[in-house]
Structure formats: structure tokens, C-alpha cells
């Protein structure tokens, strides 16, 4: 075990690292500047349990109604050996619907990694659909297995990741947040698939950056396919994975002896976490299990009100400082002079208008 791996194991405590999936890897791309999150994720700490232990449980439940619907739609789309799916994908890609495409379900086997690799990197390039392939990515120096609910479609010699989602596309429009989440998740698969091919000496670029998203159309359950270009997401993802690969640099900023071992008592645990710098933003609430803890810690900071608020306040970090500058009871640092003048003017105008002076 390398020194870094040893250190990460200490941070984690005596438990095996939490398994990543495409969703957690995709979540890593949000707020890339947060050291606390990068360290905990690299160590594979069970963040939901950690958040609960320190008294700030995450709220990321999933309704069983949503799960049922998702599974039902996926089963419907994949029915009949993927005949319907093949037609949808081919038509969307503008290639003729091939006869006799093969359908390989890689999900049921014992030796999945091996079989997935053989099947996907085999030299043939006839039309084929591969369901449930097992893919891998290196995250923070550790191999992570991905078991995507995904179909890799090989058509006209190119691989396309096919993502089946159950949110509707109504009159050609879908919920932008859901599409964005699907795009970044698909990018994880594209990256993993490319690495798999590259490792076998094949050209990784046969995996297209255009992902096929299959969703129910309008209010019915009939599937419709759309193309998503995930080049931007791939860049973001690569950058964050590279950053996690240089975990040593990040660990240098972490106090020696820091641990997120879940058996430690909550107060000590919270104290230790405070020692690792975080970069809370309100967007974290939708993405990170630890967000409520970080939000509590960031109380009184302008960043907790959102980045636009912080910027509008001249980038001054703390609310108390903002108010002191605005009231003129605190002398600004030289670099704050401009912000302080703006805040003083704003405070005067606000007070004026609220006192009922005519405008």
C-alpha cells in the first residue's frame, strides 16, 4: 500500500471504501474547488453516514414511484431483444436500421469484467447492442467498477452510449436540470468505454461523443431518442479526475491526523471536518451529502447566500464585515476601497428610501 493509499485508508477508518457509480462520479464535477469534498470522495468515505453521524443528514431520498416508473420504461424500451431500441437509435443517428443486429446482455454473468472487455473490444464492427456492460475508471488512484444501466450501441462502426431515462420530453423540451444530469452521467460512460478500448489498443475515438438519450415522449410512454453532445462534460470530468489523481497535493492541505472514521464521536468528527477547507455554495444542497453541515459552517459568510450575492457585495467574505463597511464603522483594507464605497452608497440609499425620503 502506498503512502497515499495508507493515508486515505486512515481518513476512511476501518471500513472498505464506498463504491462509486456514474452518479457519484458525475457529482464530483460539481464544485471542483472544494477540498473537503475531493478528499472525502477520494478516500471513499461514506458521506451519507458521515452527515447523519454529525447531525446533518442529507435528504436525497428517491420515491419508489419514480423507481418503479424508471424500471418499467427501461424494460419496455429494451423489450424484444432491443428491436425497438435499435430502430430508435439508428433513425436518430440517420443510419439505415440494420438487419440482424446482435443483442448481448453482459449483466448476468459471473466473470463480467472479462466478458465485457472481450465483447466490447472484439474486432468485429457489425451492428450490435451491449446491455449492462461492466466498465471501470480510475478515481483517485483506485479502480472503480461501473455497472451502468446502459446500452452501448455499435452502429456503422461507431459506439454510441445509449442512456434510457424516464423523464418526459414534451413538445421537444425536457427539464433542463434532468438533461444536464443525464449528460454528465453519460459522459462518465463515454470516458470509461474509451479507456477500455484504448487499453486494448483500439482507437478510443470510435466511441462517439454524441450520446443517445431515450425518454418517453409527451405524456404517453412511447420512447423518443435525442442526441446529446457531451464533449464539454468530458472535459470537465477529465479535469476533475486528474485533480483527484493528484490527491497528494490536496492531502498536503489537510491537517495531519484528520480522520472521518465513523466510529469517532460526532463532536470530534465535526471538529476534524472544520479543519479541511470547504467551498460551500447553495448549489451544493442539490449535489453533496455533506451540504447541510457545510451550510451551517458557512453561516455568516456571503458565499452562503449565493455567488451572485457575494459578487454584488464586492466579494467581501463575511456578512459582519459587509455591514461594518457599509456603515462606515470599519476602515476598509486597501483592496476593499472600491467595494466599501459601493456598500456605503448602497446603505445610504437604502436607509434614505426606507425612511420615506422622496425619490
Amino acid at each position, binding site marked *: 500500500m502506498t503512502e497515499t493509499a495508507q493515508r486515505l485508508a486512515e481518513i476512511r477508518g476501518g471500513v472498505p471504501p464506498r463504491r462509486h457509480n456514474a452518479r457519484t462520479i458525475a457529482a464530483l464535477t460539481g464544485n471542483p474547488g472544494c477540498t473537503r469534498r475531493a478528499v472525502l470522495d477520494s478516500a471513499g468515505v461514506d458521506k451519507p453516514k458521515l452527515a447523519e453521524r454529525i447531525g446533518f443528514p442529507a435528504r436525497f431520498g428517491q420515491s419508489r414511484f419514480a423507481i418503479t416508473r424508471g424500471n418499467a420504461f427501461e424494460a419496455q424500451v429494451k423489450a424484444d431483444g432491443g428491436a425497438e431500441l435499435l430502430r430508435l437509435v439508428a433513425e436518430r443517428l440517420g443510419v439505415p436500421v440494420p438487419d440482424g443486429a446482435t443483442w448481448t446482455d453482459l449483466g448476468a454473468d459471473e466473470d463480467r469484467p472479462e466478458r465485457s472487455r472481450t465483447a466490447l473490444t472484439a474486432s468485429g464492427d457489425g451492428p450490435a447492442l451491449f446491455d449492462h456492460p461492466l466498465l471501470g475508471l480510475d478515481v483517485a488512484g483506485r479502480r472503480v467498477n461501473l455497472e451502468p444501466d446502459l446500452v452501448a450501441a455499435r452502429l456503422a462502426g461507431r459506439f454510441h452510449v445509449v442512456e434510457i431515462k424516464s423523464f418526459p420530453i414534451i413538445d421537444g423540451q425536457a427539464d433542463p436540470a434532468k438533461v444536464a444530469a443525464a449528460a454528465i452521467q453519460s459522459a462518465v460512460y463515454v470516458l470509461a468505454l474509451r479507456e477500455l478500448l484504448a487499453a486494448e489498443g483500439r482507437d478510443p475515438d470510435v466511441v462517439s461523443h454524441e450520446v443517445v438519450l431515450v425518454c418517453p415522449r409527451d405524456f404517453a410512454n412511447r420512447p423518443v431518442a435525442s442526441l446529446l453532445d457531451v464533449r464539454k462534460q468530458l472535459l470537465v470530468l477529465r479535469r476533475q479526475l486528474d485533480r483527484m489523481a493528484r490527491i497528494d497535493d490536496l492531502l498536503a492541505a489537510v491537517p495531519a491526523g484528520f480522520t472521518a472514521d465513523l466510529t469517532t464521536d460526532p463532536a470530534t468528527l465535526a471538529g476534524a471536518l472544520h479543519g479541511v477547507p470547504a467551498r460551500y455554495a447553495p448549489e451544493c444542497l442539490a449535489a453533496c451529502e455533506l451540504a447541510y453541515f457545510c451550510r451551517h459552517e458557512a453561516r455568516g459568510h456571503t458565499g452562503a447566500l449565493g455567488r451572485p*450575492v457575494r459578487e454584488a457585495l464586492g466579494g467581501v467574505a463575511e456578512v459582519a464585515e459587509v455591514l461594518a463597511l457599509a456603515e462606515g464603522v470599519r476602515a476598509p483594507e486597501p483592496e476593499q476601497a472600491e467595494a466599501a464605497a459601493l456598500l456605503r452608497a448602497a446603505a445610504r440609499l*437604502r436607509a434614505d428610501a426606507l425612511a420615506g425620503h422622496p425619490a
Partner: protein
Amino acid sequence: MSTLRALARAQAVAAGVAQPVATVRHLHLSDRPLVLVPLALAGEANAPLAALVGAAPDEARLLVVPQPRNRDQRFAFAAELAGIVLPWLDEFRDRTEAVPVDRGRDVRHRYLDAPQLLVPNPAGITFLRLFGRSTRFRRPDGEHPVHPSVPLLGRWLTFFAERAEHPGSAALVALTDALTLHWATGQSVVEDLHLPALLGWLDPPPGLTGAEAAALAEDPARCPPAGPATDPDFDNHRLAPVMEAYADAGDDPVARAAAYAELERLLHDQLAPTWELMWRGVGLLRALPAGARVAGRWDGDKDAFTAHAEHVDAGGGPQPRRDGAVAAAARLHRLERALTSYAVQRAYDDPLVMAEHRLTGEAFVGDVTLADPKRVDDTGKRPVLRPRIQVVTTEPVLVPVGATLYSPARPGQKAKVVFVTPAADGKTEVVLELSGGMGRGLTAPPGTVPEVGERLCLTTLSDGFLPAGNFPAPEETPWTHGGPPAAAPAPADPVPAADADPAEDWS
């Protein structure tokens, strides 16, 4: 986010309670707004689960859908909702007022008042928009007939959802938007979307700070979310068993009635707290005096309501799924004009909003120190009245010489900047030449020219008439925009093919 609003947020953090960012109410509030709190089933495409509807706090009516995946029940819900919404709309159609048009040469009639719908949050508006979309193309005849009121409800909901996109309209309002327009909380914009937390900041219970009240309100077990999305724990542990019990009851009328009653009780408990919050929020807004230009904007809503009612009466078809190129361009133009005008009107109505523009140099306030109300410019073909005034201000003046300024006190008058001179103590003297709003003669009537000693706000923002753009007829759509639409879609079958199969059912 303007610095002024951001500062108000910082002050709210320090004070522990929300701070005002408006001194008047910027939206019309109806005496009898129809409050609608919808819930949708998780995972489905906008499938209604329940709703609490009513035009007064003690008139709440609960609608539930025991099996939201069942399309017949979905449309039964739509018919039931239509049974509430359509008669309520008709209440506004018994009295009209005459409005002069064409410079008083003619009159037209519009309804004296218009209906107002209130939902908790922007997601509620999206829910209504999509529900309108899923019902307006339905037909009372054919293979899968629905109650005749269903497509009508769909068209009205679509009407409201389209008005909600119109800046300054108060026909369909998300209460979180209405409240954050008037108060700044000590939390972020994202957190403000949660109505219970927002009201925690606005009106914390005794003994709690806004932050504490908001934190309590975020616990879904203590305070159910304001919809349309439900709390997953509620779905998994409470809703699912009751829905199963209903399904298992089958044809047994006693068991079915018992399960239905239990479902009603459960959903009512989820909706009732939001219902209370809605009326509390309405009460907070009512306490503010309405801005001077609110009634004028509400007239726009009355016009739109009248026009749509006439369209429906005349047998007009449902709104299209997507606008054509010309209609889309015209609509965008309308929305942009409304957005500009709305921003200006709010600033004119409210010194606290104008303060945001003063901070960015788009406006300043000063005292009139000199006035020459009788000045006549006779250099042109005929003499014209062009009084001059001098205003002294302590605020930075960023407008260039030659710019035209306006004053909310006399919106019909233009003030051209003639000189800008720095004076002692960091003050600035601005000389302005006035035109307009002073009658036709060469003597200004009293009060039309600011007098020495008057405090005056001058701004680059103009509430003047914005000319409507010219757009070609649809059949003359230029090739850059796809050319004229192909042969009109067959009106005989307005139901899109993909939707024409409502028999599908999930389980």
C-alpha cells in the same frame, strides 16, 4: 442581483428576519384569488396526485387521484378541477367596462375584473402549464372521450401559464416569486424557492430567528414540501401503503371507501400546511399599499382575459403546441417590451427600487436650485416653451450632456442635459432643459415646471410608449425563418398522434 438587494440579504442575516426591498406592492392582488396547491406523483409525466383549491381560506376543496397512473382518473381529476375553475372564471364575466380606443374615437368593452390564480412556487406554474398541455387537445368524442370541460380547462390553464411568462402580469403568480420581489431573506435564491422556509424568514414564530424557523421548515417530516413534488419518505412509507390498500380493495365498496377516506386524510395533511402558508403570504402582501402603476398593469391582464374569453366563445381552437416563426418572434417582442416597461414602472412607483438604479448611475436625486419656467426658445421656425432648471446633487452623475432624462414625478416631461458642472463639496450641478407636459401655450401651467427647493429624481429610464414591432404575416415568413409554413395542419385532428393513445397504463 443588485448590490442593494444583496445588501438587504446581508442585513437580513444580521437581523435574523427578512428585510424589505420594496416600499409598495408591485403586483395586483385580487379580493378572491383562486389558490391552487397541486401535488404530482413522483416519476410520472406531470400526473396529478392531489390538489387543494379555493378562493378563500375557509373554502378549501380537496381533489385526490387514488391511482394517478390511471388515465381515466387523471381526466376525472381534470373534470373535477374544471368544475371549480370554470364557474369561478364565469364570475368575472358578468360586468364589462368601456375603454376608449383610437384616441377616443371609439370604445371597446372589457371585463371589469380578471381572475387571479396563485400557486406556491414556480414549479407549480410549470405543473399547470404541462397539465394544460396534456388536456387542451383532448376531445369529448372519438375513441377516448373526456368530459367536455377538460379541453376547456386545458386552454384556460394554458392561457394562465402564458400570462405567467409576461413580466408584470398578475394573472398566475407563484407566491415565492411575489414575496421575494418585496423582501430579501438571509438565505440564497435556491432556498427561497421553498415556501415554508421563505415564510420562516418573513414571519418567524415568536422566539425564533428567521434562520431557525427556515431550518425547521426544511424538515419534510415537520413541514411537508409545498409541492408539486412530494417528499420521497412520505411516498415510500405513507402514500404507497395507502394506495396499495385502495388498489387491493378492488370492487369491495366498503374497503374501497375506507381506503379512499384514508388517502384523502393523508393527502389533506400534506397539503393543509401549504394552504395556510399561502394565505399567510397573501396577507403579508396585502398589508403593503399597491404601487401607482399596478392598476395599469392589471388592466393588461383584464384585456388578455377578455380577449381569450372572446376567442373561446367564438369557437377558436386550442393554443398550438409550438408557435410558428412569426408568432414566436412577435411573442418574444411583446415579452421584451413588457419586461422593460415593468422594470421602469417599478422604479417609478418605488423609491427603494429606484435606489437600485441610483446606485448604478441610471438615476440621481437632487434639489432644484434655479428655475427659469418662462424660458422660450425662439431660434426655430416658431417659438417653443423650453424652461430650464438647475439641480444640485451629491450623487455621482454619469449621464452625458445631451442625454434625455425623465422624472417619475412628471413622467410626460423630457429633461435634456445641457451642462454638468462639478461644484464644491463633491456636489454636481446639472442644468436641464424641459420639454413636454406643459400644455400647448408659451406659459407653463403652475406645477408643470419644478420649483426651486423641490427635490427631484432624474433618470434615464423612460416609461414612454414603446412602439410595437412590425412582423410579416405568417404566410410571408422569410426564408431565414423557415419560409411560409407548409399547408396548414389538418384541423380535423388536433390531437398529436403520439398522444392519441391514452389507453396505456403503468403499474
